[in-house]
Every structure is written in structure tokens, then in C-alpha cells.
């Protein structure tokens, strides 16, 4: 069963399209990396997939609920919530908002925090966690949403090494469970380990398995020719200009 099918998608704001001609398929168990410069349309694509933005044209078919992991750079640090509170927000996807929380909700949320390795920090204030841990809490929230499709918006940005490793392992696990995972990222090397890569730069530059897709030509087109080539085999050491 295909989880997500996008065909001929055009989307934008105020009548001006910023993303043309996007078409790809997400199957269960797949991880797709979404590459592209800032302003290349990654966020716009995600907003369309989440149903926040109506496309100008094309079709988006989603077979299941979509969970979303935003960038923690944008979370409010002054908000009076614990890690567990944030994880529990995911229950809104599964039950109407007026239904009180149940014991099973809390247990599920605690288990989800456990899966991202933060069970012990469940009671800690969200805003006082490190960036990496906050990102993992947001992943736990998406786990609580229990969505077969997961969209992650640059989850590795500003994240410490241990958190990045934990996250990477978790994404593999989630895919192995049969979920479809769409990850916006800047890390070309990381994408190589995943199933497919979608390159966007105002339009779809390429879509396919990383070994065939990540050529110098595609990357140059994706990042506007300003890429930095490191010594090494063709394509292996290519970094986008704003790679961290």
C-alpha cells in the first residue's frame, strides 16, 4: 500500500507558485530525504502534505494520518510544559480535543519518550532541555500521534552528536516498523543511507535512490551551483554551502 502519492504538484502563496511539478511516492518502510536550499520549497511541500496549504495544481494522495516533527529552533522555550506534556500533545491526533487524558495516554507518551531515550527526563521543563533533546521530545510527540507517515523538518539542525545518532537509529527503527518517513535535511551524506532522495529547488530537480540521484549535476542544480567539492570520489564529499 502506497502511503503517500504526489503528482504534478504546484504550490505557493498569494497566487505565486514557489514549487513546481513535484511528483513522488512514499511506500511503507521507506525513508526519503528531502534536499534543497533554504527557500527551495521544502517547507511549502510539507505544509501541503500536512493539509495546511492548498496546492494550486496536482494531486496529493495520503493513505494515512501524518505526524509532524517541527524544527526545535522554532519552539517556545518560555512555555510552561514538561517533556511529557509536549509528548502528550500528540494524543490530539488520536482522540477529540475535549476528551480528558487517560492513564493509557500517559503510559503511551512515557513509552514514546523512552523510545527517544528521554524517559528519565519526562518531568523536566521542555525549554530547559538541550536542542537535541528537545528535538527528540518532538519526535516522541509524533510517535504519540501514532501516524504511519512522519514528516520531519530538518530534525538534525542544531542537534548535538549523541542526539543525532539516537535520532538516526530511531528513524531506521520507525521505517523498519513499516512507517513512511520524509526528512528534510541539509546533510547530503546522511541521505545516502536512506531509500530515496527528493531534490527541490523551486521545482523537483530529481527523485530516486540516492546512489543514482546524488550526482554532481543534480546537486549543482539543487543548490544553484554554489556547492563545495571536497577531495574524494565523485559526489561523495559534496556539501551544500550552508552545511553545519
Amino acid at each position, binding site marked *: 500500500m502506497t502511503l503517500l502519492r504526489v503528482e504534478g504538484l504546484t504550490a505557493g502563496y498569494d497566487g505565486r507558485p514557489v514549487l513546481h511539478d513535484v511528483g513522488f511516492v512514499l511506500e511503507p518502510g521507506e525513508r526519503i530525504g528531502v534536499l534543497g536550499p533554504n527557500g527551495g520549497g521544502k517547507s511549502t511541500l510539507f505544509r501541503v502534505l500536512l493539509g495546511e496549504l492548498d496546492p494550486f495544481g496536482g494531486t496529493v494522495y495520503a493513505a494515512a494520518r501524518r505526524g509532524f516533527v517541527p524544527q526545535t529552533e522554532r*519552539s517556545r522555550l518560555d*512555555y510552561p510544559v514538561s517533556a511529557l506534556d*509536549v509528548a502528550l500533545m500528540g494524543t*490530539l491526533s488520536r482522540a477529540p*480535543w475535549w476528551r480528558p487524558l487517560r492513564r493509557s495516554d500517559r503510559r503511551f507518551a512515557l513509552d514514546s519518550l523512552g523510545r527517544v531515550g528521554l524517559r528519565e527526563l519526562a518531568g523536566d*521543563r521542555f525549554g530547559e532541555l538541550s536542542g537535541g533533546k528537545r528535538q527528540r521530545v518532538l519526535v516522541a*510527540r509524533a510517535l504519540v500521534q501514532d501516524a504511519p507517515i512522519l514528516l520531519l523538518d530538518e530534525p538534525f539542525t542544531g542537534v548535538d552528536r549523541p542526539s543525532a545518532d539516537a535520532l538516526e537509529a530511531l528513524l531506521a527503527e520507525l521505517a523498519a516498523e513499516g512507517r513512511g518517513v520524509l526528512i528534510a535535511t541539509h546533510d547530503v551524506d546522511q541521505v545516502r543511507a536512506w531509500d530515496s532522495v527528493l531534490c527541490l529547488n523551486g521545482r523537483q530537480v530529481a527523485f530516486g535512490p540516492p546512489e543514482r540521484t546524488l550526482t554532481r549535476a543534480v546537486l549543482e542544480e539543487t543548490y544553484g551551483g554554489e556547492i563545495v567539492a571536497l577531495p574524494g570520489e565523485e559526489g561523495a564529499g559534496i556539501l551544500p554551502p550552508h552545511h553545519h
Partner: protein
Amino acid sequence: MTHALFHPWTLGFMQHALAELALVGIVGGALGCWVIFYGLAYSAESLAHALFPGLVGAALLGLPLLLGGAVGVLGAAVAVAVFGRAPEIGRDTAVAVVISSLFGAGVVLALSQASPPGLESLLFGDLLGVSRVDLLVAGILAALALAALGALHRLLLAVGFDRGSSRALVARPLVADLALLALLATAIVIGVQGLGNLLVVAVLVGPSATARLFARRMAPMMTLAAGIAIAASLAGLYLSYYANIAAGASVAATVVVAYLLGHGVRAGRIPIVKRVLAVAILALACAGSAAASSPPTLRGRTIAIDPGHNGGNYRHAAQIDRLVNAGTLRKACDTTGTQTNAGYTEAAYTLDVSLRLASLLRAAGARVVLTRTTNTGWGPCITQRAAIGNRAHVSVALSIHADGGPSSGRGFHVIYPPSIRGLTDDIAVASYRLALAVRAAFHAGTGMPYATYIGRAGLDRRSDLGGLNLSDVPKVFVETGNMRNATDARLLANARFRRREAQALARGLAAFLAARP
């Protein structure tokens, strides 16, 4: 000491004020936290201002203020929705213009000749005028608001945390925003009668802003905010009671003080020793001001209230015209009294205020003796009126009147007896003190000015009143206003104002008795 602490709460109107503030505090504690995190403080202020014409309209029509507030909020919402759509104006400008215009319209309406006075009570509230019915309605609204907040909690928490991904969570930001605005309007309607147009938002949101400095999670923050609100309300009401400051203003002030204290503590600008010191000084100041006035409860006191004249006097000319010995002269047994141009009689008026006053005093634990309890008979004679108080061994007696002065003259005055050998020499000093206490309380509690046409600074000394001359207990007359003056007449004919008069007189009597163990 304990007496001083508990005394205010033996008075019905103080209980009502505290109950009203507790409702505002609890709803505000929960709602205020959302207002802060949703950045709605300005909207709250705007809503409070925009409902002003509704309030004034209700006061004009004699309708419940709660209803006026509700209609005002709806009207403002419609106006904002309509003008906010006008493309050439811009939403922000439209809202600002609508809000300012509505507020201005309310003020103009309130200042118009036809309106009942009391603009300041709409602006600053009338905490001590909150009635049982007001409380009941406010209580129901508060319960509904809290239930809604409980149901909305998860949604509000998620949307406020992360509006951007709330759609992905199937949390609906629009539902959250609209619900919050509706609840805000409800909370303002609950609090506006007690705290007025200008203070209600401060008391609704202030405690949450303080709690935010300390609480780490939402539910404790709300609880703390409600606690701060109630503590500040208590402190404010004590302040108001013992320092004789308008209740709403002193509560708003204590809310602000709580915030400043919280900020100081949080920012570490006040080290722990000084913190303890500050709390101690505050406590001492409270205790000091309490001890200074230290009024015991009215329990064990007997008070005579004398509603001037009688509604049936005009039908009993023969009886009331009979001359009696008024001590210094012989004069008629009683008179018919005056009335407003609209025909509201002094006799009906004095009985109404007296009955209100009696119930307040009884609620405070006093025994009350009334010289009459109906408005259909005649008399009693002035000699009897004094004798009733003397026989009952009352602690203090108050005769309630309204004047029939020149139509251009306004205001109230208190009449006390001079020292007359063999008549008032034993009560003159105490009666003068009583006059001062009643004058101060009535002036502060009702806003009625000192009489412009008689006496001096709201006081008049007279030796021709049998009711005073023949009294063996401290006694004064209060002439609460001039029924022949259009402004005063409108006030005296207003039930809400009479309630405030009774409350003010009760405070005056309590203050006088407090100084007499």
C-alpha cells in the same frame, strides 16, 4: 487582633466583594495564563473598553450590568468584524478606531444629562455593591468558563506551544482562538461590575503574569495565579476597609504590588534576608493598620435606625401636627417630609435605605432597632423616635433623612447636636465623633459631595431637632442628598445607589463603634 482580621467579613457586602473577587481570581488565574501565552492582553483590554457603551446603556435602562456587558461585548465583536473587513482601512486600524470610538461613545453616553450618575463606578467598578443575584450569575458564568477551560486545556496547550504544527496535530488553532476570545469576554463580563471597565483586565491578567515568574508548568501556574489573585484580593479589601480606599482600586493596586514583589524576588534583586524583611514589614503594616482601627465585630451591639417621616403622615394631619416637647422648643410630632419632583417621597426613601442598612448591620452581628418598618402608618413622634433608642439601650442611633433644599444645591450633610445642659451634654462629644465617622464613610462610599447649600463641609450643628435633643445615646441625622436637586434626586431614586448608601452608612457606624469598646 483576631477581631480586626475577621471583622470585615462579618459584613455582607464585604463577603460579597470577596466572593466576587474569588470568582474573578479563579477564572482569571486560569484564563490569564492563556492570555499571556497567546499574547491577548491587548485584546482583553480592548474588549473591556469596547463593552463600555453596553454597560452605560444597561445603567441607563436600569438593567443588570452583567447583561449590558454581555451585549456590549457582542456589539464590539460585530463592529470589529464588520469594520475589520473594510479593505482600505486595515484590520489593526479598524480595530483601534472601533474600540476607541465605542469607549468614547460610552463616556459621552454616561456624561449625558439623561443618564444616572455613577460613571466612576462603571469605570472603576463597584465591588461593595455586588448583590447576591450578581454573585449568583457571576458564579454560574464562572463555572461555565472553568468547565470550558478544562475541556479546552489540551487544545489550548498544544496550539499555544506550537501554532505552526498544531494543524498536523489535528489541533484547530481557530477553535482555540475563538474559544479563548469568548472566554475572555465572559471573564470580563463576570468581573466588570465589581472592578469596572478600567481595572478588570489588570485583576484578570496581573496574577497570571506574577505566577509566570515562578511556575514551571501550566496547571501549577494557573493554581498559583488564582492563589495570588485571592491573596491580593484579601489584602486589597483589608486595605480598602481600614484605609477607606475604593475597593476596586486597592485590589488592583495589591495585584500590581504582588507582581512587582514577584519580579523583585525572581530577578534576585531582593536577597533572601531582605525578602523576609519585606514580608515582615508588609505583615506588620497590615497588622498595624488593622490594629490601629481595630474595630470589634458588631456582635453584641445594638443600633437604632430611624427612617425619617412616614408614608401615612399626610393622611394623619391631626396626629402629626400635635405639638410635642422637643427639649429646646415645642414642635410638631412629625412631618410629611419632602419628595423628588418625580414624586418619590422622602418617607419611602428613608425606609428603603434604613431596611438595607439594618440588614447589613444584622449580617455583621448587630441587633437593630427600627423606629418604623412600614411606610403606610404615621409617626412615631420625634419624642418616641428618640425614646425607642433610649429604651433599647442602643450603642448608637442614626436618623436617616433626605433634604428638600434649593434646587440648585447638591450634596449630603450630617447633623449633630450641640452640647445642651441637661439634654445632650452627655452625648454631644460622642455624637460629633459619630458625625465625623458617618460623613467620612458616606462621602467615600457614595461619592456624594458635601452639601453646597447648607452647613460646612458636610456637617451642620442644630439644637432644634427633638430626635437629637432627647437622645441619651450618640446620635446624628444624615441628610443624604437634596431631593429637589435633579442630580441628587436621580441618585436617590436609584436602587443601586441606595445599596451603596446603606453600605457606606454601615461602614460609618462600624468605624464609630470600633473606637468605643
